[in-house]
């Protein structure tokens, strides 16, 4: 009987893990399937590239397989930065040509890269560059952009706020995360269409995962782009902030307080043997 009762904790643990697994299976019934070139292109490449729509953040991919060898393409898609560092002349050329924006390494298999290249042999309307017309931005849009970036207004589809991973030098928002790129001058580096494209369809795996089921709406993209544009142009007016030191200091001070609290809570603990004073007075032998 007692053994049964004692098993409670064990079975609770096992049941808990088990039920999470079952729940997981029920909630995610879709199983990965081979994707077509089009699907792959639309799930990320289109943030920076067009097929027949002209240059965006990165080059137009129309007919790219005729310009480069198959081997080079696969290698570049998977490890572009490594190739730049290794001094591959074509890769370095592209890097310089596109404002030193690194193409993120894509977790695509060789077959998938080739499927995209196959798809890129003919022009497609999808992913065509938006006309680079000035978007009419109001003051509210920029404020909304600030709030969205900071998270104080939540993204309507439930995605995480930008500052979870990105920092931007702007006094209007609290410092952001540093998991991903600092965004203060992203607008001048990538240009409006580039930023918009990345927000609409993120090419970076981490960002992709974060917004996979909860994409940003048109309005949110517009507001964020507006905010980033303003942050870029006004960056000299704002103070960069370093949260690292603050976080570290408050952590150390906080844990000091915590330890003091424990000590206070258990202040009546028995610290030594009842006979300690008798033991202590005795000569130690050698």
């Amino acid at each position, binding site marked *: 009987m007692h053994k049964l009762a004692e098993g409670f*904790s064990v079975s609770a643990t096992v049941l808990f893990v088990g039920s999470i697994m079952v729940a*997981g299976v029920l909630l995610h019934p879709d199983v990965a399937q081979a994707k077509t070139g089009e699907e792959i292109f639309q799930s990320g490449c289109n943030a920076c590239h067009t097929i027949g729509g002209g240059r965006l953040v990165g080059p137009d991919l129309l007919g790219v397989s005729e310009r480069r060898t198959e081997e080079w393409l696969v290698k570049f898609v998977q490890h572009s930065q490594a190739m730049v560092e290794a001094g591959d002349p074509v890769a370095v050329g592209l890097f310089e040509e596109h404002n030193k924006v690194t193409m993120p390494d894509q977790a695509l298999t060789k077959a998938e890269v080739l499927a995209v290249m196959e798809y890129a042999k003919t022009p497609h309307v999808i992913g065509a560059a938006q006309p680079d017309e000035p978007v009419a931005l109001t003051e509210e849009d920029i404020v909304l952009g600030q709030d969205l970036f900071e998270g*104080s207004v939540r993204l309507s589809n439930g995605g995480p706020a930008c500052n*979870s991973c990105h920092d931007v030098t702007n006094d209007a928002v*609290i410092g952001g995360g540093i998991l991903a790129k600092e965004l203060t001058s992203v607008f001048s580096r990538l240009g409006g269409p580039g930023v918009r494209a990345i927000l609409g369809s993120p090419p970076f*795996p981490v960002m992709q*995962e974060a917004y996979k089921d909860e994409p940003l709406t048109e309005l949110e993209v517009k507001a964020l782009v507006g905010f980033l544009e303003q942050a870029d142009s006004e960056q000299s007016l704002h103070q960069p902030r370093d949260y690292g030191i603050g976080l570290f200091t408050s952590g150390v001070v906080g844990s000091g307080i915590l330890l003091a609290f424990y000590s206070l809570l258990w202040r009546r603990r028995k610290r*030594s043997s009842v006979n300690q004073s008798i033991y202590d007075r005795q000569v130690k032998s050698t």
Partner: protein
Amino acid sequence: MNTLNTFLFVVFPYVAGIVFVVGVTYRYRRTAFTVSSLSSQFLEGDKLFWGSVPFHIGLLAVFFGHLLAFLLPQATLAWNSVPVRLIILEVSAFVFGLSLLFGLLSLLWRRLTNPRVRVVTSRMDIAIELLLLAQVVLGCWVALGFRWGSSWFAADLTPYLWSLLALSPETDAVFALPLVIRLHIAGAFLILFMVPFTRLAHFVVAPLHYLFRPYQVVIWNWDRKAVRNPKEPWSKARPKNN
């Protein structure tokens, strides 16, 4: 690199999970005697206070923090949408993380320097303590170096962990994370893997059932009916010896 990533974040989690469940069940059922917290407070209690208390409380706080972001990602993001709340959450998580680190370091120091405690120290104890230490250092590093982890955990790692449980791992995001974070994730699975083989097994017998039982426990080994009936003492429970 990709092979290693695939191993660490696709294969190993399942290995670790299965080893954990099977190992703990086996150890609990077959060698229950070895399941113990193996407390050494009896041999040394004063230094233990400064190790065990911050360590365990910190560990529980940090563990439940991770669990919360895993089970309720949207609630976590909603909490974090107010900057003050985000900072409170992150700072307190870091405080518990640091106190956990402090506790672990003092436990390790005590284990290595106190002659009595060393007597009850096995190599596995040192190994698991170093593993935990690495994990906690990485965790503090992540908290400090890749801040607002509560938000990106909810956004990126929660879907990954759920996809693992759904048996269709989606690993693109994990593969693209910085090395420190990946090590921290792999470390978590390694610790899970090690539970059945180490003293960590004591956490699965956390005595929560104590809250629900009456204080006094009386166990009858006799069948109280059969013992009253001299005609059939043998029919119900035939003795195995004597």
